[in-house]
């Protein structure tokens, strides 16, 4: 990179800007910058001219106008009288919800499938590779559409639950109804005193966390391992349970029931949500499974052999030796798959799920004709999410990488 400095007596020539390594870097950058800015201003200038030609302006005022359309799934209060901005917010929350739930399911499934694919059981291994290849090699859009169709066509309509001898019945003691409009779960209803219960539950969890820390320390110091799992379960369940009965059952379940056209009450997971989440989760889990497999295979065989020679059992080898090491390799691509899942959730429109692309980038854009503004906001949102996630990857890489040499 460094070149011997030339004698200063040499006079400056214009051509040296390009041929002399001392100046070339700088002049290249200046040229690039000028071209970049020129293109940028050319685009902006064109946009301004085009907007003037169409008699349009750039204004985000439409966000405060009445939206006029309804959204079926809303995590915050929203009616057709709410503003377009509110609709966008509802959409953003819906996107985040799908992404969040999808990532969790995808991780669990991916881990499961990835490990099972390495199974010695021939049929299981083959089935898992079929799962992985099947989901990885067909476009996600098709999967979303097909999962949605599966959910609507092979589940009963709410009407099937009607009558003296219904064609379909609710599951789990009349508490869960799977219909082709979605799945209805009982919803908890908090009566007076329920907050004490929540507090108690929270305290139990804190207690468990401290207990696990203590147990780990104990294990490191003395080598004795406590039955952490069962104690934790007991700590989490019993105090809350006792308090629940002591206070006269302040939390009750509200069961869904059939009224009119639909089931009423309970928690309603719409089919559009289920289909999108499941399709995204299945699709992403296939990629995660491959990452998990690669991560596990990357841990050298000597590690598991050494662990086996120490007398550890296979499940202990997996959880104590292999997974902790594999995790370092697995996590960064895993998170970038989370990012892909979030971005793929923008295909929600295919099943009519109202995510931010459907509200802000779909109906609002359509009704107001504000393409430029809507798309800018939309891209800004996705960009923010993605930058957040990639900064997390960088943080992980920095803090968890094995220090070599």
């Amino acid at each position, binding site marked *: 990179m460094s070149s011997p400095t030339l004698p200063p007596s040499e006079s400056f020539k214009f051509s040296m800007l390009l041929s002399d390594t001392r100046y070339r870097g700088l002049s290249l950058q200046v040229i690039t910058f000028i*071209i970049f800015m020129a*293109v940028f201003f*050319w685009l902006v200038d064109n946009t301004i001219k085009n907007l003037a*030609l*169409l*008699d*349009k302006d750039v204004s985000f005022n439409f966000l405060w106008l009445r939206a*006029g*359309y*309804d*959204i*079926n799934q809303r995590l915050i209060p929203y009616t*057709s009288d709410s503003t377009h901005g509110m609709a966008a917010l509802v959409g953003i929350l819906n996107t985040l919800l799908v992404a969040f739930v999808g990532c969790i399911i995808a991780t669990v499934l991916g881990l499961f499938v990835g490990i099972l694919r390495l199974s010695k059981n021939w049929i299981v291994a083959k089935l898992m590779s079929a799962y992985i290849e099947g989901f990885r090699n067909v476009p996600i859009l098709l999967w979303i559409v097909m999962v949605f*169709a599966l959910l*609507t*066509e092979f589940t*009963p*309509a*709410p*009407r*099937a639950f009607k009558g003296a001898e219904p064609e379909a019945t609710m599951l789990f003691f009349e508490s869960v109804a799977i219909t*082709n*409009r979605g799945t209805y779960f009982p919803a908890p209803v908090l009566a007076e005193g329920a907050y004490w219960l929540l507090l108690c539950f929270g305290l139990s969890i804190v207690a468990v966390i401290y207990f696990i820390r203590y147990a780990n320390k104990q294990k490191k110091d003395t080598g004795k391992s406590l039955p952490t799992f069962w104690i934790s379960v007991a700590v989490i369940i019993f105090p809350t349970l006792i308090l629940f009965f002591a206070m006269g059952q302040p939390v009750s379940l509200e069961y869904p029931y059939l*009224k*009119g*056209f*639909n089931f009423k009450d309970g928690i309603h997971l719409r*089919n*559009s949500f289920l289909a999108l989440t499941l399709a995204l989760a299945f699709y992403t889990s296939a990629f995660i499974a491959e990452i998990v497999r690669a991560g596990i295979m990357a841990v050298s065989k000597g590690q598991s052999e050494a662990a086996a020679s120490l007398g550890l059992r296979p499940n202990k080898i997996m959880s104590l030796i292999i997974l902790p090491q594999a995790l370092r390799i697995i996590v960064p691509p895993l998170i970038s798959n989370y990012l892909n899942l979030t971005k793929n959730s923008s295909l929600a*429109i*295919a*099943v*009519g799920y*109202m995510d931010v692309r*459907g509200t802000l980038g*779909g*109906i609002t*854009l*359509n*009704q107001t*004709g504000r*393409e430029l503004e809507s798309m800018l906001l939309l891209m800004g949102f996705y960009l923010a999410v993605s930058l957040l996630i990639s900064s997390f990857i960088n943080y992980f890489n920095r803090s968890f990488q094995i220090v070599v040499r």
Partner: protein
Amino acid sequence: MKKLFLGVLTALALAASGTFAGTLDDVKARGNLLCGVSTGAPGFATVDDSGKDVGFDVDYCRALAAAIFGDPMAVKFVGLTSAVRFTALAAGEVDILARNTTWTYSRDTDLKQTFLGVNYYDGQGFMVKKELGVKSTTELDGATVCIQVGTTTELNLADYFKENGMSYEPVPTADNAESQQQYLAGACDTYTTDASALHGTRVNLENPDDHLVLPEIISKEPLGPLVRHGDDNWADIGRWVLNALVIAEEKGITKANIDSWKDTKDAEIHRLLGTGDDDILAMVGLPKNAMYNAIKAGGNYGEIFENNLGATSGINIERGVNASWTKGGILYSPPFR
């Protein structure tokens, strides 16, 4: 490289020469009409097994192309989803948008478009399964409603249920076929869209008699072709081709008998078919026999309707209000003079 790229773009820009003022000149220079239609709306626009564009909107565009060029095939159809249709028109990707689009105030003014008239009077209706026992839309409180996103039907639906103090659960779908799929599977109790489409769909269901289109029409949906603001001559051409098709039906001029009107006493027919002395079509820059060609292309309004939406098409939509005013409908063209 970048310079070359810009050069290419500039060259393309010059080649496209999309000044919006003289659309007719642009169309003539290009040698064909660019017509924006639906990517798939039963009866209005689709592609048949042999790959040919067919439909009600398609035939209107063919008539327009015939009027300009004398050749109904001198038109290219650009399939547009409801999401991109207006921007495609505004950007000049199409010369005219005939995509069963509802004429509304805000589309006319805020989106800077000119509607040329109404080629189909529609209204939003609901279809339900008979076994549901619903006889009127007022009984739909709490129902799940399948609805196509990005259309006016969505807004009408919200307004209608609010006005009547009812609640509903919207199930948005990407297109009409999807709505139908959901409705049949029972994922929604009722399925709402323009009544024409409902009738069309019902006839082709496995058991049409199990389904009912509710009598209420909750909105006016005048569908029509539209062009960009700012080129009145082009708008006039589109408007009068449409009117010519309607007049032709009024007068009984059909594709088959169009050549047999030379001796008629009716001066308007002579003006329309260009068989008289005065050439009034020169005012908009069309040949004298432009309307003759337009009618010859796919027949008059009634024939186009019959072939694409009526009994011949298998969709079996009644003429209803879309009949000529002489037959009890509201199709009424201003005089061609």
